[in-house]
């Protein structure tokens, strides 16, 4: 510990920092660090500390660097912090860089072996764990050693920053679903490192965790699981998918919650089909939606690209289906394991020819759940595909939330006629046609296959048709169809989730965003308020845009559109839909692959505002 002598004397006098710092765990992908990191974040959650865990991982199975950042915030902020005060440097390949990114006064927990190869700084604390030596003392069978080695940093972190070691055992036990043997095997390592650290390391940093009451009644979950649970409560019947990061765990979530919808004799009401590609996944859900089931796929950008032909067909033929786009960074294969909001325009305009797709953009776990069920009601009410645009950050990371509200509306199947209703319709209107709009809202009445009425059948097609669903190449029929589809989209504007607006102040500055930037913006606005800069805020939750977006723009002298993509796509859409008097609308667009930070927003907004 000689190398720490100088540092100790510098840092000992610092005020303690409790429950308000972030740490980053740097390991190699595939080294089993996922369990260790989950144990850490869950333990903090159970200590009552508002916490958030974000996994920054490579597109790789084994070997490439991966970072897991955990932010504890006594004030309940859960956005990613730009700076992490502590790093667990367990990857020799990145250790030098990891250490250099620490702020002065930061902490590096590393192995004795790695410590020899990193450039030492004299303004941070180093704690070296003799991992190889500790592992030699364990009774762990050699086959498992590599898998549990990471538990050494769990033990060291627990000792250094005050996480109760018995709590960690409970969390391990839950992690292994109550199986004592693996929990015990892991915990032995934790205890070994915990005890060694207590005896051998002199703490020289001010960071500490402390029990508090910040998570009582809260849940922790990933957005993909929340959306999947929502779909289960929304009555999903057919799920078709093709594996793709970062959406795969969405379908894993549906599988894990499917039992909630099983009958007493374990029969399923949800079919889950792993298709041969995204084209087939889209075809399966369009076929299922057409036949009267509630269907869903989950994918990300490259999959959405492949699904565009079916998306256009479903839009034109008016078939309900739900598509989740857990957005990752594009274009092309891009950064498959990094987050992005870069598919907004593409998804909204998906399909060739004229037309818009309905999009819902959840900003947090509760909305992922809510849109999970509501998307089916919207798709069936509007007889059109619905795209839920989430992202990797929400989808794959652990978020803190209040428990979800049970759906406050009954299931809405939309305008579907059974045999009796079809007869009544014919009695009233003289005829029924699949695309006959008798209500004037752009939404016609449909029948589904299996309806026992001689006039129930109709022919669905992607080619020109008239309101009776008969093939037509006539210009007037085509224009009538397109006009009605546009009318339907206008009807949709009022039916979709409306923006969340905080315009209680007389601020000149308005902030507009969508999706997961919400947490970072909330924190940045608090910082701005502390600086005397007032802001109002509107978060768009659906496309086509609600009318209130225009009112918000008109009501502010300066409007910043904050979005995590490179081109400022929401800004472009606003300019398209609200073309007049918008010189005061400016994008603050990032798109660097990482979840947005409050400091980026704070600094850039201040700079732009002058």
């Amino acid at each position, binding site marked *: 510990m000689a190398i720490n002598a100088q540092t100790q004397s510098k840092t000992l006098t610092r005020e303690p920092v409790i429950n308000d710092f972030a740490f980053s765990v740097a390991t190699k992908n595939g080294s089993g660090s996922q369990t260790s990191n989950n144990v850490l974040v869950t333990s903090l959650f*159970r200590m009552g500390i508002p916490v958030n865990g974000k996994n920054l991982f490579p597109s790789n199975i084994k070997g490439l660097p991966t970072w897991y950042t955990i932010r504890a915030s006594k004030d309940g902020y859960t956005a990613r912090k730009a700076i992490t005060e502590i790093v667990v440097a367990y990857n020799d390949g990145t250790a030098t860089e990891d250490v250099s990114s620490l702020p002065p006064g930061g902490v590096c927990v590393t192995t004795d072996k790695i410590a020899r190869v990193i450039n030492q700084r004299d303004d941070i604390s180093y704690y070296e764990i003799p991992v190889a030596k500790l592992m030699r003392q364990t009774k762990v069978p050699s086959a498992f050693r590599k898998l549990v080695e990471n538990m050494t940093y769990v033990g060291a972190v627990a000792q250094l920053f005050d996480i109760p070691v018995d709590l960690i055992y409970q969390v391990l036990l839950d992690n292994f679903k109550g199986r004592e043997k693996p929990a015990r095997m892991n915990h032995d390592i934790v205890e070994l490192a915990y005890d060694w650290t207590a005896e051998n390391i002199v703490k020289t940093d001010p960071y500490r965790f402390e029990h508090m009451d910040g998570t*009582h009644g*809260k*849940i*922790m*979950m990933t957005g993909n699981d929340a959306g999947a*649970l929502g779909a*289960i*409560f*929304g*009555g999903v*019947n*057919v799920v*078709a998918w093709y594996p793709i990061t970062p959406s795969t765990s969405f379908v894993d979530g549906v599988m894990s919650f499917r039992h*909630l*919808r099983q009958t007493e004799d*374990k*029969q*399923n*009401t949800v*079919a889950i*089909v792993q*298709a*041969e590609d995204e*084209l*087939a*996944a*889209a*075809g*399966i859900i*369009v*076929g*299922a*939606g*057409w*036949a*009267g*089931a*509630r*269907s869903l796929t989950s994918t990300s950008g490259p999959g959405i690209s492949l699904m565009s*032909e*079916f998306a256009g067909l479903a839009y034109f033929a008016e078939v309900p289906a739900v598509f989740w786009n857990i957005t990752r960074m594009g274009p092309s294969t891009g950064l498959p394991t990094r987050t992005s909001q870069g598919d907004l325009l593409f998804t909204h305009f998906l399909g060739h020819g004229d037309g818009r797709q309905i999009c819902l953009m959840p900003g947090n776990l509760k909305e992922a759940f809510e849109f999970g*069920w509501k998307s089916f009601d919207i798709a069936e009410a509007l007889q059109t595909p619905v795209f839920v645009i989430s992202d990797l950050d929400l989808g794959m990371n652990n978020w803190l939330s209040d*428990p*979800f509200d049970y759906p406050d509306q009954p*299931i809405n199947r939309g305008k579907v006629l059974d045999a009796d209703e079809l007869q009544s319709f014919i009695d009233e209107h003289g005829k029924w046609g699949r695309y006959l709009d008798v209500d004037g809202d752009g939404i016609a009445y449909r*029948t*589904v*296959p*299996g*309806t026992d*009425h*001689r006039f*129930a*059948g*109709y*022919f*669905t097609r*992607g080619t020109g048709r008239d309101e009776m669903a*008969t093939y037509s190449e006539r210009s007037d029929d085509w224009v009538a169809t397109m006009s009605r589809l546009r009318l339907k989209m206008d009807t949709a504007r009022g039916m979709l989730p409306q923006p969340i607006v905080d315009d209680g102040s007389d601020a000149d500055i308005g902030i507009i965003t969508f999706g997961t930037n919400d947490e970072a913006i909330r924190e940045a606005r608090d910082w701005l308020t502390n600086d005397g800069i007032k802001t109002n805020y509107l978060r768009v939750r659906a496309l086509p845009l609600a009318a209130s977006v225009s009112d918000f723009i008109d009501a502010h002298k300066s409007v910043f559109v904050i979005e995590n993509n490179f081109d400022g796509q929401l800004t472009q859409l606003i300019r398209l839909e609200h073309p007049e008097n918008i010189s005061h609308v400016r994008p603050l667009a990032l798109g660097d692959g990482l979840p947005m930070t409050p400091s980026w927003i704070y600094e850039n907004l201040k700079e732009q505002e002058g």
Partner: protein
Amino acid sequence: MPPRTNHLGLARNEYKGRPSTLCPGCGHDSISNQIISMAYELGLEQHKIIKVSGIGCSSKTPAYFLGGSHGFNALHGRMPSVVTGALLANTDLSCIAVSGDGDTGSIGMGQFKHVIRRNVPFVYIIENNGVYGLTKGQFSATADEGQFLKYYGTNHMPAIDLCLEAVIAGATFVARSFSGDAKQVQALLQAAVRHPGTSVLDIISPCVTFNNAETSTKSYPYGRDHEIPLHEIQILAPDYVDAKEEITIGDYDEGDILDVEMHDGSYIRLKKLDNDHDPRNRRLAMDVLERSMREQIFSTGLIYYEEPRPTLADTEELVETPLARLNAEGLRPSQAALEGVMQSLMVG
């Protein structure tokens, strides 16, 4: 005289669709006619049938039969996925699907193979004419190697045999026929529609406009002169009211009769011609197909049959009620169920 009716009291006309817009004489129209006859003869209820197709001349035909059924003219090469979804949504439905050699053999090859692999129970008809009609005469992947067409010259690539692909993919009912052989098409359709697995019917169906020269193996003259049925086919279906034909062995010796028992208890009776083909033997099925291709023999009939393995819906262990007909209770778990999940995600 009132028209003849089936056991539902429906005349054959009731099973028709809209008038065809295909070229007069198109082989596809003969197949549509046989589908109409099949549904009429078996007394099928149209509301329990869906008609699905891809894109192309053949895929237009579902508009021309069973006007009382729901139809879906989907995307090029993607009919199998739409069928998969629709039949998962409602397992009470039967499906007659129509594709072409371009739709299946080129753009849709992947979906063709995978729908068979999943064993979605439906009749998969390929109306195979070796040529792209709507885009005016390009070779398809089933065109003969060495064939010459006016605008596109000589085809230098080997033909894909869709029956062989189906057998290899794991299809449990594979047949080849000729649209000019109405009787055989009818018998195969009647067998296929009651087979609870993917039934592949590759029907050579001449394109009278772009590929009907005598030199083409997909032409009427060639088919009429060269078709060699492997057997005569008769369907013995006790469960269908209208299958009243007298069940006779006729001029055949007992040893020349092969009764293939189907899943529903009916039989496909095959009267052997001058060969030893047994469609229950996978090796023989592949041999027949390979020899036919090598020696340019136009063998037709039931190529391969096996007792179907579980369907996709079976392996999904779905409830008996079609998913599309579940009520609100079957679609949404209780508030207590949600609270239980929430509780499990909380501290302590």
